[in-house]
């Protein structure tokens, strides 16, 4: 008897999924065309698709997306540069932990978007305010995760490295850092989610000249619901793309590379 397992493509799941999606779209279309609600507020799907096409052909959307992405990247980069050393210090030194953790637990529960009006007053409308919001949104989760990761490092590893005569630099680069990495990566994934919310919210509230949030904000002023929906689709797609094509594989790769079994189970 051959043990070759036959792979059944999940046709039923696919069909049901498509059914659900098309059902939602049909309901929208019927509602939009019924005239119960102004078409300016609930545009038919085709107008949204046309607007999406216009935006892509026009090309300004790429500049807006680029500016938003750049803000997220710079903000996350700065967060990373501060959070990793802080988290590491907190995980390895009791004094650093006792010093920083109360500050962390006071600042963490304040929503980053609450700071937007203040940042606008201090730094003006534009890049600095939005980047600051991204930093605020991401830095605490990243610090917290690095800290947890550094604390969770198996004592056996550090002890055996110590016994084998590793100096403190080797200890850091070859034991501490790789051991903490899976936590850092999952922290990065969560931070990106928060930063993404923060940058869109920040752009809505601060309304700088460029950015995806700005498109939505402007569209409201001119009552262009189809532009808003098209922008929402773009925002959603970018979020999904980064999560599925970059962060998830990165997480899977680090976990696999360093054989962290405990993260695999969930």
């Amino acid at each position, binding site marked *: 008897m051959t043990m070759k397992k036959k792979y059944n493509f999940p046709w*039923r*799941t696919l069909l*049901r*999924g*498509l*059914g*659900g*999606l098309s*059902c*939602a779209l049909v309901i929208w279309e019927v509602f939009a065309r019924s005239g119960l609600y102004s078409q300016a*507020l*609930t545009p038919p799907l085709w107008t949204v698709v046309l607007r999406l096409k216009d935006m892509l052909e026009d090309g300004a959307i790429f500049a807006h997306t680029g500016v938003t992405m750049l803000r997220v990247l710079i903000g996350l980069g700065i967060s990373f540069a501060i959070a990793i050393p802080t988290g590491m210090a907190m995980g390895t030194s009791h*004094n650093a932990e*006792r*010093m*920083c*953790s*109360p*500050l962390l*637990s*006071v*600042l*963490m*529960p*304040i*929503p*980053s*978007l*609450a*700071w*937007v*009006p*203040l940042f*606008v*007053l*201090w730094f003006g409308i534009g890049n600095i305010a939005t980047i600051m919001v991204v930093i605020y949104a991401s830095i605490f989760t990243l610090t917290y995760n690095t800290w947890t990761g550094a604390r969770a490092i198996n004592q056996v590893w550090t002890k055996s490295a110590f016994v084998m005569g590793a100096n403190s630099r080797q200890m850091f680069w070859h034991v501490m850092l790789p051991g903490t990495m899976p936590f850092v990566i999952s922290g990065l994934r969560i931070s990106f*989610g*928060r930063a*993404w*919310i923060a940058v*869109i*919210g920040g752009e*809505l*509230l601060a309304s700088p000249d460029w950015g995806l*949030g700005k498109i*939505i*904000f402007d*569209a*409201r002023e001119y*009552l262009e*619901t189809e532009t*808003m*929906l098209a*922008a*929402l689709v773009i*925002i*959603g797609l970018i*979020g*999904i793309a980064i*999560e599925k094509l970059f962060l998830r594989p990165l997480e899977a790769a680090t976990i696999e590379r360093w054989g962290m079994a405990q993260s695999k189970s969930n």
Partner: protein
Amino acid sequence: MRRFQDVLLACIPFAIIFLAWQLLSLYGGFPEKLVPNLGQIGQTFVRLASEGILWGAAKSTLYRLLLGFLISGLVGVMIGILMGRHKAVEDVLLPLISFVYPIPGIAYAPLFVLWFGLGDMPAILLIAFASTFIVIMNTWKGVKSVKQVWIKSAEIMGAKSTDIFWRIVLPGALPFILSGLRLGLASAWRILVAVEMLMSVKVGLGWMIFGSQTFLNTDVMLATIALIGLIGVILEKQIFEQIERRTVIRWGMVKG
């Protein structure tokens, strides 16, 4: 003595920040309106608190949070359980949800304003909408994680399907449901302040910050942010840790 040392160490970063702030505001050469000193912020906080303005704003913000969260909790848990129990529901809803889920809730705010107008109701609806998906996803995963062996053995022992649901599926999924609700509340809280700013509600903590921007009342903004932080700590530490301690930790399902 150790306890005393802990407190002392914890005070260091706060002391540094406060000192730096005070120096910046007194000698930094910035306009007092933009960088008020700590005394002014404290006075403003006390004044706003004693006049009941802070409490009034906090009350209406919390009311929005709780109502929105109640809706998202009920709807989210119900849909999540349906998805976990019935493959057909899961197949139909999962693609839809996984498309809407990653769009930041706050991005819908202008759309909700167009559809439902300004004010309280759209703010609550948006809060509910934005926090539902994480509750759905967690509940769904929780129901899926209930061991088939438990269900099968209960079936063999003659349990009715309602019994199986109430006594096995629901308690089994509870750790996930609770963490979903916790995340839902946290995400609702995270955007609520911004939603209030965009929806121009009549009273609310977010609106207070946004309104103060026009009049350069930085002291009011900072006092409000301090209160927001305080409420956040209470929500996180008090409410959910208590619920978890009384249920899943007590039942030995999750380590305390």
